[in-house]
Each structure stands twice: as structure tokens, then as C-alpha cells.
């Protein structure tokens, strides 16, 4: 029982030190928030709400319905009517509209004819992403169909699980894993190495505290921090980007807990090897970069060469991404994720055994 008290004493000491380290506290909250905003808002390949100027030369019920359909895609935001081609170009030149849409005066005939464009889309070429918008609009089925194609239904974009094709929906769950990797590996590794650097460890290991108590006591606060960060990311994702959790929250937190433990064990192993905080940081980066690039966070996993896929299998983030995407986006249950859970568990056991084998209450 005294072991548990010692463990809690170590944990309480760690929390007290953390609470006094304002920069680290700032990072714990700041990293998820900033990254989420950065990835959620800035890195957004799917442009929405583009301001458009419209020159409707037809002014028929058909042209109005066509414009209504365009607005329904949400790709275009405000539609500013222009009375002449000159005004339309002027709006674009001033940057007030990024896209110009010109509807031909005789759209009914053009539609019936089927070979001539009914609509011209002018794009502000200085903004590369907008070209995709134009292509998207150009590819809309209503413009290519014969007969009476202007059915009163919005343009259909069929993408499973992310019907709106928004980056945030993919980013939020994936970011959760990336941020946990950062916090768990770097913070814990440096928390232990710092004590070694400052000589605290030399004193601690001459006391009755056991390696397991010492490790568990030091890591416990970071488990809680990891769960707080998970909650923060999911909450911000819900409020700011409207990403709901389709599956069960309990499943989600259980998966997160396993991933946190796996990442902590890696941080622990690093801490038994690194002599300085700088070394710990370097070692953590060796894991961080492939985690970000190869786990499917940035590039689709399937598109990577076989070697890269093999390496990715070793990274816990790869499996956690599968788990969290499944639960958050597809509403999957943990029971659907047995292979991923098993791989995380194996990673945890291997890392923990290595770390424990390396950590002794000695200096040699």
C-alpha cells in the first residue's frame, strides 16, 4: 500500500511542477487549439462560400432555377448580380468576386442543342484553389444533359461518410492522434530526462521509491492531460467545424486510452536512452515525422508504396487513426477494430518491456 502512496506522491509532485510551468501548460492547451484551427480553417482544399458575380442575360425562370441550384451546392456564397459584362469584370478585378458566372441569353435553346455552353465561368486565376471550383461547377450534371435537365434538385455529390467533402471532418479525428503523439512522446520523454539532467533522479533512486512507482507516478498526470486534449479537440471539432462523434464516446475514450498508453511507453523508452532533453526531442522527432507523414494523416495510406506501408504498420498512430476515424466518422464500435486494438496492445507491451528492462535504479 505504501507503494501506491509513493506513486501518488510522485504524481502530485509532477502536477505541482507542471502547474508552475506556464509555458508547458500553455502548450498543452495551445497546441491542440492552434493546430485544429490551422488545419481546420487554413488547410482547406475544398473551397466553400466563394463570392460570385452573376450576369444573367437570360432572365428566365430556367436561369433563376439554374442559379438556385448553384447556390444550393454551397460552393458559391453570395451571388452578386451584375448588369453588364463590364460590371462583372470590374467586380472581379476589385477582388469583390472571385468567380464570374455569365448565363447566355438563349439558354433554353442551347440546352436543347446540347453542344453549346449555356454558362461561362470566369475564374480569378491568381488563386489556384478556385480553378478546382470552376471545374467542379463545370462538371455539374445539369449543364451536360439534354432535354429538360433542370430538375429542381441540388447537385448531387456523393461521398460516403463525409457528404460535404469537408477537410475538417477528416482533420479533426486525425489531429487528435497527432497531438496525442506529440504530447505523450515528447512531454513524457523530456519530463523524465529533465530529472536526470538536473540530478533529481540520482537522489530519487537512492530512496525506497521503486522504478514502477516512479514511472507510473510520473506518467499518470500525462494520461490525464492526454484525455483532456482528446476532449478539447473533439469539443472544438464539434463546435467550430460541426464534426459529431458518430460512435460511442466510451469506445472512443477507451481507444484513446490505449493509444495514450502506447505513446507513453514509447516516450518512456526514449527517456531511458536519451541523456539530455535535446536528445529526447531529436529521438521523438524521428517518430513524429513518419507518424504525421505516413500514418494516413496527410496522404492516403493506400497510395503509399509497400515499404512505407510496412513502416506505417509499426507506428501506433496508423492504427489509432483507423480506430478514431471509424468511431467518429463511421460510427463503428470497438469490436469492429480488433486488429488495430491488438496491434496497439502489442506495441505497448513491447515498448514497456524494453523501457522497464533499461530503467534500473542505478547510474551504470
Amino acid at each position: 500500500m505504501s507503494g501506491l502512496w509513493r506513486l501518488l506522491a510522485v504524481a502530485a509532485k509532477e502536477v505541482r511542477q507542471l502547474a508552475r510551468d506556464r509555458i508547458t501548460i500553455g502548450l498543452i492547451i495551445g497546441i491542440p487549439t492552434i493546430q485544429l484551427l490551422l488545419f481546420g480553417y487554413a488547410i482547406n482544399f475544398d473551397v466553400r462560400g466563394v463570392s460570385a458575380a452573376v450576369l444573367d442575360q437570360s432572365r428566365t425562370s430556367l436561369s433563376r432555377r439554374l442559379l438556385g441550384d448553384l447556390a444550393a451546392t454551397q460552393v458559391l456564397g453570395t451571388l452578386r448580380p451584375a448588369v453588364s459584362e463590364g460590371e462583372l469584370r470590374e467586380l472581379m478585378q476589385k477582388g469583390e468576386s472571385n468567380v464570374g458566372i455569365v448565363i447566355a441569353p438563349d439558354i433554353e435553346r442551347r440546352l436543347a442543342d446540347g453542344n453549346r455552353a449555356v454558362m461561362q465561368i470566369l475564374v480569378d486565376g491568381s488563386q489556384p484553389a478556385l480553378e478546382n471550383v470552376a471545374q467542379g461547377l463545370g462538371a455539374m450534371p445539369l449543364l451536360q444533359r439534354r432535354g429538360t435537365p433542370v430538375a429542381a434538385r441540388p447537385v448531387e455529390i456523393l461521398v460516403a461518410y463525409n457528404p460535404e467533402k469537408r477537410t475538417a471532418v477528416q482533420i479533426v479525428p486525425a489531429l487528435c492522434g497527432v497531438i496525442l503523439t506529440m504530447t505523450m512522446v515528447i512531454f513524457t520523454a523530456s519530463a523524465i530526462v529533465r530529472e536526470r539532467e538536473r540530478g533529481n533522479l540520482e537522489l530519487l533512486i537512492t530512496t525506497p521509491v521503486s522504478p514502477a512507482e516512479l514511472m507510473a507516478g510520473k506518467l499518470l498526470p500525462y494520461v490525464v492531460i492526454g484525455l483532456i486534449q482528446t476532449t478539447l479537440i473533439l469539443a472544438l471539432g464539434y463546435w467550430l467545424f460541426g464534426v459529431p462523434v458518430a460512435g460511442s464516446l466510451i469506445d472512443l475514450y477507451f481507444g484513446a486510452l490505449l493509444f495514450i498508453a502506447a505513446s507513453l511507453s514509447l516516450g518512456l523508452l526514449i527517456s531511458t536512452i536519451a541523456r539530455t532533453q535535446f536528445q529526447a526531442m531529436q529521438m521523438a522527432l524521428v517518430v513524429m515525422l513518419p507518424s504525421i507523414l505516413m500514418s494516413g494523416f496527410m496522404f492516403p495510406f493506400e497510395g503509399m508504396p509497400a515499404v512505407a506501408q510496412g513502416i506505417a504498420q509499426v507506428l501506433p498512430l496508423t492504427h489509432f487513426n483507423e480506430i478514431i476515424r471509424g468511431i467518429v466518422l463511421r460510427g463503428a464500435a470497438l469490436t469492429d477494430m480488433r486488429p488495430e486494438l491488438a496491434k496497439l496492445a502489442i506495441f505497448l507491451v513491447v515498448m514497456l518491456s524494453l523501457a522497464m528492462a533499461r530503467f534500473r535504479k542505478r547510474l551504470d
Partner: protein
Amino acid sequence: MSLAISARGLARHFGHVIAVAGIDLDVPAAEIYGFLGPNGSGKSTTIRMLCGLLVPTRGTVTVLGHSMPRDAEIVRRKLGYMTQRFSLWDDLTAGENLDFMCRVYGLDRATRRVRIATRLRDYDLEPLVEQRAGTLSGGQRQRLALAAATLHEPQLLLLDEPTSAVDPQSRRDFWENLFALVARGTTILVSTHYMDEAERCHRLAILDRGRIAAEGEPKQLARDIDATVIEIGNADFVSARRALAAIAEVRSIAQLGNRLRVLMPRTAVEPERRLREALAPANAGASVQRVGASLEDVFVAATRLGIGADDTPERAA
């Protein structure tokens, strides 16, 4: 005489470097035992082997009746260790540091309260209890470290150069505290490179390149010195030094103010006459006089510092 520590043939190698080259050690209980030696003489390595931080390459150690490193966990409960560097937590207050160390030693709430209050009072730390350890002065930190090392009332205290970053007054106070602990039956092993501190120890081992070069009570060591000590005054030191260095039997020349202190082997025949002859051409009026050995002479003789080597251990401030 009961022994707190007993070691036989204790050695520790780091790769090809031999830090401790096989030493025998007997530390009597309830005394202050000193390790005197320059940096790299094996003081810290020996202390670390005694508290189980390092495993000996060879040899056996018994600490408080337990074999090390086998019984390290048992010994740790009876042992207090003060590292060379201040190793409490800078970002915790003095009080929090003491409280944490109490908890690590598994002391219950009532004991914690009493022990912390006593240590704060004994070591003059009461006004500093709310202050972060990182903002304390060298002397205050050292008192805090000693308070932390004695919270669990250890039978044996291992102090690794405890006064290296402390002013002379704090060092005097610190030694008063050590004697108070010894009076209560604590055994203290302290390493130092200050001669005045070494003189305060009940017993002393002079370490040199991983070996014990001399061992005993400080006064006895000075009496038993295997050298003749001669002081030379009233001379031109530059030319005198050159003349003396030419004599093969002169083991060391050190300047102390306006005197030169010369060490020669005890076997040297008529040392005063020979030195006078050597000095004669340039320094005919120089005084040459045989004097009693100081601990520093013992140290120099024991560690066989060569001619002209003035890098003897730091002198007391």
C-alpha cells in the same frame, strides 16, 4: 568498534578507465569519516558504489551489515545521500521538497509534520519554507539538502562534496550540524577537497587515482608522514625554486606567502644542509628550517606530486 561500512578490494572500471582500483575501507559507526582527494580520484564513484547507484566491477561491500548491491533496497531505507549537485526540485518550495521526500520515504502524516518542523527549526529554514528552492542561496540550498537527507533519520549519511558551493561561514555551520548528527549516533561519510574540512574528520582516507594513499586520524597522519618538511624564507623565490628543483630528492615545492615549503623523503640525508648548499650561490641569507607536517603535506606526500607541481588541492578559504 562496530563498523558502518566495510569494503574489500572494491574496484570500479568504466570501460578502460579505472575509477576505483581496489580499495579496502573500514568506516567506524557514529564517526565522521572523510574522503580527501582531487577531482577524479574516485571519491564520488566510491560513494555511489556504497549507496548502490553503481555496481562494483570487483570486490565486496557491506553497508550497515547488509551486502551491497544485493540488499540495496534495504540499505536505502537506512541511508541518506547528498549528491554533489543540488538535486532537490528548483520549482518546488523548501517546504514542498521536504514534504515530498517524507512521502517518498513513506512517513505517515503525523511523523511528517514533526520531522519537517524539526528540520526547519534545526537548519534555520523556517523563514524560507514558502520560497522556491531554485531561488535559495548556496548555503540555504545546502541546509535544505541536509534537512531532506535526514528526514527519515538515516543511520548512515553519505555526503558527496557537500560544501563545494558554499561560503566559509555556511561551511562552519554545516559542520556544526554534522557533529550534532554524529552525537545522535549517525555515521557520516563525507568527501571533500578542502584541507580544513578533512582536519575536522575523525578519520580520513586520502584518495589518489582510485587508490587509498593514506588512511587514519588526521593528527596521526601528520605525525606519520613519510617525508621531511622544510620551510625556506628570506629568499628570491624564482632563483630559489630553480635551484631546489635541481635536487632529485625534492618531491614538491609550494609557495605559502613569503615562504617556500619543500617536501623531501624521510630517507634523505641531512636535508637542511643540502638545501642550504643548493641555495647558497644566489640566496646565501635564506632561512632553512625543518617544520611539522600539515595535512596538506600529508596529502602531497601521499599523492606523490612531482617537482614544481602546485596543483595541490584547493586550500581552505
